Structure formats: C-alpha cells, structure tokens
C-alpha cells in the first residue's frame, strides 16, 4: 500500500478524518475535528499531546511487518509546527517517505 494511503489511514485513526485536502495544516485538521464522534479530542492541545499521539500511531503503522517499513521515530514533536516545519499533510507524507528505511520483515502467516 502507498505511503500516502497509510499516512491518511493513520490520520483517520488520529482525528477521525482522512482529509480530502492534502494541503490542510495538521493543526487546523486537529482543531476542526475536535468534536468528531469517532475520535473526539476536545481540549487536547495539538502541541505536544496531539502531535505525540500522531507520532505514536505512525510509529506503530510503519514498523508493521512487510516490505515497506520506516523509522518514523526520527520525527519528534518539535519537528511539527509551530517550532518545526512539518505543517501540512503533504509535509507529513514527505517526512515519512524520506525517513530512514527499516529492514523488511516477512508478514506473519495467519
């Protein structure tokens, strides 16, 4: 599955919405979905708690067994706006794409 698709799936789990506009700021996305019935986060600030929650979910997603694995833990809360330069969904996708590769791990047979 494409990295962008996986990032958008993580965003849906994070804030309840995979955005139609990939140029949307993550902070705006987080604020505008604060009362989402599936993933409510009213009162939880984007920085650092929202960002750390997103980071945790990305780490879980991209360390799953498979061919495409990424060391997303290199991304820290301070790399996101306002202190860092990761602002939009496109920025996040690019950040994941160029994160260091992890060795591929065979999928477990179910």
């Amino acid at each position, binding site marked *: 599955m494409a*990295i*962008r*698709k996986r990032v958008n799936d993580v965003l849906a789990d994070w804030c309840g919405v995979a955005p139609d*506009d990939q140029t949307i700021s993550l902070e705006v996305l987080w604020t505008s979905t604060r*009362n989402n019935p599936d993933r409510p986060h009213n009162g*939880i600030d984007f920085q650092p708690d929202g960002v750390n929650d997103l980071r945790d979910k990305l780490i879980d997603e991209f360390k799953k067994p498979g061919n*495409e694995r990424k060391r997303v833990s290199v991304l820290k809360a301070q790399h996101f706006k306002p202190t860092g330069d990761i602002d939009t969904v496109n920025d996040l996708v690019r950040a994941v*794409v160029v994160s260091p*590769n992890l060795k591929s791990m065979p999928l477990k047979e179910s």
Partner: protein
Amino acid sequence: MKKLLMTLIVVAAASTWPTAQINGAEVDFPCQLTDYRILQPNEIMVRCDGVNINNFAAEASLYRLLDESVVYPAVATGSGSGPVAGYPFWLKFLFPEPLAHTQDYELRFSGSYKIKRPGRADWVTEFFKPTRFRFTTRPELAVAKTPGPNEQYLSGHSAVQLSAGAKLVDKTNGQEYDLQLASSDPADPDAAGQLVLNPAPSTLGQKLEVRGVTDIFNQKLTVKPAKAAPPPTAPKTKEAANWNFNVLHQMGEGIKPTWIVDVKIAPVLGGLPGRFYITPSLIVDTGNGKVGETKTNDIINPKFGVSRLVRTNGIFNGIKFSPSISYETNRERDKRNLLFDGNTRIYITGLENTKAQRSQDAFMRARLLNPTVLPQDVPEARFGYSVKLFFGTELGKALTDNEAKSSDKSSSVIVPKYGIRRFRPQFSSSLEFWRLTTSLSVYPRFLFSTENVTREMDTLQPDGSVKKTIFLHTVSGWRPYGELSVSYSFDPAGHYAATSVYKFGSQPPNFDHTNVVLSGVVVRF
C-alpha cells in the same frame, strides 16, 4: 521572419488543443497540480492537491517547449485517468510513445471527474475546462531537506534505478554517502525519485556527484546543490524556548561586581516504551546582588517527569498523567524540598470551544463552499469558552531544618523539617466575548499533614521603634487559592491587553493569606 514563424507555430499549437465532451457548463479544474512523477517512459503522474476527485477521465495532449513562451505543435495524444487504486490523489497520463529525455513539456488535458460537493452526499460528475501543466524530463536530482529532522536527501521527478554501490560523493570534503530508494514499491509516486542518504548529513557541499544512478530514460543524473537557507528564527520567549541562557554581569568604579544567571533547559526528549514521554527540566534563576534594576531571584529547580496521554471515546475524550519529581533549592542551599507531583488532566467533550477554534470552524465551512476564501475573509467569532480540569498530588518533605529571617532581618526562627502530603485539584476556565476575556482558576488544595510555616508581626521595641518579629506557625486542612482576571485586548491578535487580577487564598510553600487586586498591561508574543 523567425519571429513570425514562431508566432504561427504557437497559433497552430493552440488550434490543436482538444476540446472536452461537454455536457453542461465546464468548470475550472479544481485540483492544484503541484507535483509530478515519471514512473514509466510513457507515463506521467500528477498530484491533485486541494480536493479529492474520483473517476477522472481526460483526453491529453503533449507539447514540447522551447522555452517559457514558445510551444511547439503537439507531439503526442494520450489519456488521463485516476486516482490510481491504492495511490490516492495521483492522476495518471498515459501516452503511446515514450517521452524524450532532457526535454521540457506542456501537458494539456480536459475531460470530467466526480467530486463530493458541500451539501450533497453523492459524487457529482463535472466537466472541466482545458488545463495545462508543465514538466521536464531533464536528468536532475536536487538536494532537499527532510521535513523535521533537517537532514539532507536527494529528490527528483523521475523514477531511478540504483546499481550496486550507488553513492553520492561530496567533492568539497571527499565524504561519500550510500544511496537507498525511499521505497521498495516502484509504483508509489510519492516515493519515486526520492533517495535517502546513509549516513544522513545535516549539510552538503556545493560540488556533488552521484554514482551508479540512472533515471527512467537510462540517463546519468546530475545533482543540483541546495541553496543556502536562512537560519531558523529563535523562540520569542523564555517559556517558548527549550534552551534559554541569560548571563548578566556588571562591574565598575565604586560598584561591587554582580552577576545573574537565568538558565532554562527543557528539552523534549523521545518517547519511552508504553507511550510515555520524558519531560526533564532545569531552571536556574540565581545570582549575586543585582544588575541595573534587575533583582535576582534565587531558585534552582531540577525536575524529572514523564507524561502519558490516554485517549478514549465518549464523553471522556482522554486523560493525561504527568508525574514528576522536583527538587527545590537555592544558591545558599538552605532550602531543600523534595516533591512528587502527580498531575493528571481530564478531557471532557464540549468543555473547550474558544474564539480561535470557532473562527477556524467558520473558515473551514466557508472554504468548503469557496476554496479561494482566506481566513481574513471570514468574520471572527465573538464568543468562546474553555474549561480545564486537573487533579494532582504534592507529596514529599522538607529535607532539612531551615532558618527563616524576618523581612527586616532583625529576627529569625528555625523551621523544623516536615512532611508534605497535599491533594491539589485545579479548575481553570475562561470566557471570551469580543476582546474581553474573563478567567477563573481555583486550586482547592487540601493538606493532609501539618506543615511548618512562618508568620511575621510588628513588635514595638523599648526605644519606640517597630521591628518585624518572625515566629513559627502551622497549617493543615483546606487551603484554597484562586485567581479571577479580566482583560481587554487592544489588538485583534491579543498581543497587548489591559488586565486586572484578583488573587485570593493561600499558596505553598509558606501559605501566606493573599487578598489583593493587581492591575497592569500585558504584552505577549
């Protein structure tokens, strides 16, 4: 004559532009076309930003470019489709013949797509006006900065092939870096043409060479070095900074040399297992005497804490645990308090709806109807509110007996060491109306053990003078503290405000009773 010939060519090119099969009015193509990839020699993928469209179908023509203004007649016709299954937001244009390498092109296309418009649950079909997009097949890679960690990688628009031992050589210092494809999936447009360096450098020189890398047209690639970027701006306040060092010193004739050190170290460290985050800090605000009118504080406060957010669905949106251990001392080391602070915040749905959030909601609603609308085009919300709930404990002890002196230094008392066991709920709320903000913070603290504090009183001396006498006192039970503030912002962003604060109750460590009103001007950036 040559100019006339070029004009004829341009007119001829324009006349060959295909027209869409129109069924109703044509609209502007809604996508912002911001990036492209060439995954196969006869295929270009273009990213659609701003909206999510489906069932894209287009007739496409390809034109060669001489330069920005001269377009040769169409060289190929093809078709557009997408988004490709599994690769959202990428549109594919396919041509029967391969593109030429080292060539600039203009892609023109028109057709239809499906989109979800506001107020409609179903996807509607729309036909769009002819649209242009320019791209190149030049065999080039550019040095780019990874978002976040600020390391270097190589970025191009064409898929690449790496031979064994592919390297980037920095000829300014002889350093070599192994090259890796950013993805093992050759069909992923976001990752195509992106090369990760190992080890990842934070800077690269201006003379670079790639070895063992060719593009999809089998051309050897060159590297364009990155342009020097301005350094990042510094945080504006001590509170916003992770590292803050401020050393002041003054000396001169007739003045005793003085110094002040104001240090804050609060790095945000990586996560621990179990989704805990380490939050250590060190605050040193001490010195000797005063520099100018700046009087020294005297606190040295190392603190080690972790935090963990647990999100839940339903009325409770989450809970955040932030336990920390804090050691409070000073330069003379006559205060030695060790405290465990078990702070916990509870998030409940609907308790926060600030003016800024409501303004942003209005902007998002307006943007759905009109994608070109800007935040300043939408009226700012007039009303907002926020309620925050915390529970905390303060557990620890004063490690030593301390000598406390009266404010005029005329008397002193020994404060024996004591245990600290406090329950500290906190309720904070704010109500915003236009530029007026009312805030209330209440700490109904309960002391389970008796704590030693000092009090002061005026004592009439035999010679008629009045001196301060300090004496030992104890406190326990409820010791509430609160602050009620009203502020008025002079500017829409709230940088400058007049404020009045009413403080009431008592606070640790000495639990002196407070009942004051403070007024002033606040400047925040």
